[in-house]
C-alpha cells in the first residue's frame, strides 16, 4: 500500500504543476483579453483615418497602431530577407559539405550565437552604426535597415539549425537515388533534398518570423522610435508593435492610451499565435504531402 501512496502523491504533484502552469497562463491572457477586448476596433488601428487611404499609404495615421504594424511588417520582411539566404546556405553547407570536425566547430559557434542575449546583439548593431557613422558616412543613423540586420543575426542560428537538421534527417534512400541516376551534388540538393525537407524548413522560418515580430530589446537599441509614422525609407526610424506595447506600459498618459496598449498587446499576441499555428500546420500538412510523394 505504501507504494501506492507515493504514486498518488506523484500524480497529485504532477497534476498540480500542470494546473498551475496552465492556470497562470490563462490568468495572464485572460486578464489581457478581459481588460482589452473593448479596445479592439478599426479605430484602434486607423484612428480617424479611412482604412483604405491608410492602406494605400495615401494618408498618414496619427494615434493609431497602423504605423507600428507597418513598421513591424517591414522589419520582418527585411530581416528574413537577410537571414534566409545566409541561413539556408550555411545550413546546406553544414549538412552536405562540411567534414565532421569543421561541422562541430561551426555548430558550436551557432549555438553560442543563439544563446547570446538579444540586447547584446542590439548593442552590437548600435556600435556598428556609430562606428560607420564616424568613419564611413555621417548619413548613417540607427534605422530600419540596421534593426533588420541585427534581427537577422538574432534569427540566423535558428534558420541554420532548422535547415541543417531537416536535411540531415532525410532518409539515406532518398539521398542516394538522384546521384545514382547521374545527378550532380547541386542538383541533388536543390531538386531533391531541399524540396523533400521543405516542410520542416518552412515551419522553422515561420517561427523565426515570430521571433522578429516579438523581439523588443534589439530594436530598442537600433532605431525604433516613439513616433515616426510610416517609414519613408529603410534609412529612417520606425515604429514597431512590441516597442509600442513597452512604451505604453510605462508612458501612457491617460486611460485612452492605456487601452491602446492593451489593444496592441492582444494584436501582437494574435499575430504570434497565428504564426505559430501556421508553422504547426505547415509541418503537419506538408510532411503528409511530401511523405506521399516518396
Amino acid at each position, binding site marked *: 500500500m505504501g*507504494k501506492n501512496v*507515493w504514486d498518488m502523491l*506523484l500524480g497529485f*504533484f*504532477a497534476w*498540480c*504543476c*500542470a494546473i498551475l*502552469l*496552465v492556470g497562470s*497562463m490563462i490568468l*495572464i491572457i485572460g*486578464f*489581457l483579453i478581459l481588460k482589452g477586448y473593448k479596445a479592439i476596433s478599426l479605430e484602434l488601428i486607423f484612428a480617424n483615418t479611412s482604412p483604405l487611404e491608410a492602406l494605400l499609404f495615401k494618408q498618414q495615421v496619427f494615434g493609431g497602431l497602423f504605423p507600428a504594424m507597418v513598421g513591424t511588417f517591414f522589419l520582418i520582411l527585411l530581416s528574413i530577407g537577410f537571414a534566409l539566404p*545566409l*541561413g539556408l*546556405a*550555411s545550413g*546546406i553547407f*553544414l549538412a552536405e*559539405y562540411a567534414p565532421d570536425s569543421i561541422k562541430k566547430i*561551426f555548430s*558550436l*559557434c*551557432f549555438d*553560442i*550565437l543563439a*544563446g*547570446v*542575449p*538579444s*540586447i*547584446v546583439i542590439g*548593442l*552590437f548593431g*548600435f*556600435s556598428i552604426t556609430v562606428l560607420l557613422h564616424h568613419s564611413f558616412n555621417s548619413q548613417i543613423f540607427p534605422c530600419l535597415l540596421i534593426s533588420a540586420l541585427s534581427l537577422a*543575426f538574432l534569427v*540566423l542560428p535558428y534558420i*541554420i539549425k532548422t535547415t541543417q537538421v531537416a536535411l540531415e534527417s532525410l532518409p539515406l534512400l532518398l539521398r542516394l537515388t538522384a546521384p545514382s541516376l547521374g545527378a*550532380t551534388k*547541386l542538383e541533388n540538393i536543390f531538386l531533391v533534398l531541399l524540396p523533400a525537407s521543405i516542410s520542416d524548413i518552412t515551419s522553422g522560418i515561420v517561427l523565426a518570423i*515570430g521571433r522578429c515580430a*516579438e523581439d*523588443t*530589446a534589439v530594436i*530598442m*537599441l537600433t532605431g525604433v522610435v516613439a513616433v515616426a509614422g510610416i517609414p519613408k525609407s529603410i534609412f529612417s526610424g520606425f515604429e514597431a508593435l*512590441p516597442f509600442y*506595447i*513597452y512604451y505604453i*506600459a*510605462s508612458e501612457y498618459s491617460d486611460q485612452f492610451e492605456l487601452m491602446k496598449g492593451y489593444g496592441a*498587446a492582444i494584436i*501582437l*499576441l494574435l499575430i*504570434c*499565435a497565428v*504564426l*505559430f499555428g501556421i508553422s504547426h500546420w505547415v509541418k503537419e500538412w506538408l510532411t503528409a504531402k511530401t511523405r506521399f510523394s516518396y
Partner: protein
Amino acid sequence: MQHREHIAGIIFWGATALSAGVTLAVLGFMVILSLPIIKNDMILEVLTGPWSPDHGLFGILPMIVGTLCIALLSLVVSFPVSLGCSIFIEIIRPDKPGRFLKKFVKLMTAVPTVIYGFVGVFLLVPQVRGFVSHGSGMCILSASLMLGLVISPTMILFFSQSFARVPKTYLNAVDALGGTQFQKLIYLLLPQAWPGILTGIILAFGRAMGDTLIALMISGNSVVLPTSPLDSARTLTAHIAMIIAADFDSIEFKTIFVCGGILYLMTSFGIFLARFSAGKQN
C-alpha cells in the same frame, strides 16, 4: 558543370564563415569597446564596485548580483513546476490532458516577452505590492515570477525529451518487476535522464539571464546591492537598455560593453556546459 558545382561549394562555405564571423564579431566588439576600461586598470573597480556616476563610481557589481539573483530565483520558482509538468507529460500520461499540455507548452514559446512584462506591470506588481505590504511591488520577486513562466517551456520540453529518450526496454523491465511509477521515476528515469535535465536547467538559466524586457519593466531598476527578494534591483540587460542613451565618450557608456561582454561570456559558458551534459546522455 564542374565549375558551377565548385562555385556553389564556395558560396555555401562563404555564407557559413560569414555567419560564424558574426558570432565572433559580437564578442570582438564587446571586448574592443571595453578596452579603454581594461587598459586603464579600471576593470576590477568596475566589476566589484558600486554604481554612482555622481561620485565618479561606475561599478556594475549590483547589476551582476541583480542578474544572478533574478535568474536564480526564477529557476527556483520554475524548476519544480517544470519538472512536475514533464512528469505529467511523460510519466503520468493522462491521454488527452497530456497531449494538450505538451501542445500548450509549445504554444507558450510563441508568447512575446513584452506581453509578460505588460501584464506584470498591471497585474502582478500591484498584487505583490498589496500582498507583501512593503515596497513598490517592483522587485526581484515580481520579475522572477514572470521570468519563471517565460523559461518554463524551455525546461519542460527538455525534461520531457530526455525522459522520452530513456529506452523503452528499461521501462518495461521496471514494469515487469512490479515497480511503481514513483520507483520508476526515482530509480530509473531521473538517474538516466539527469544530463538532459541539467541541459534544460542551464539553457533556461541562460534565457532568464538574457531577458531584458521583464526585468526592465518590473524589477524597479535600482542600483544598490539587493538584500532581499522584495528589493528593487537592476539586471545587466536592463542596465544596457538604460545607459545606452548616455554620452558615448563617458565611462558610463563604456561600462555597458563590459556588461555585454559578461553576458556573452556567461551565456557561451552555459552553452559549453549544456553541450557537455547533453553529450553525456548520448
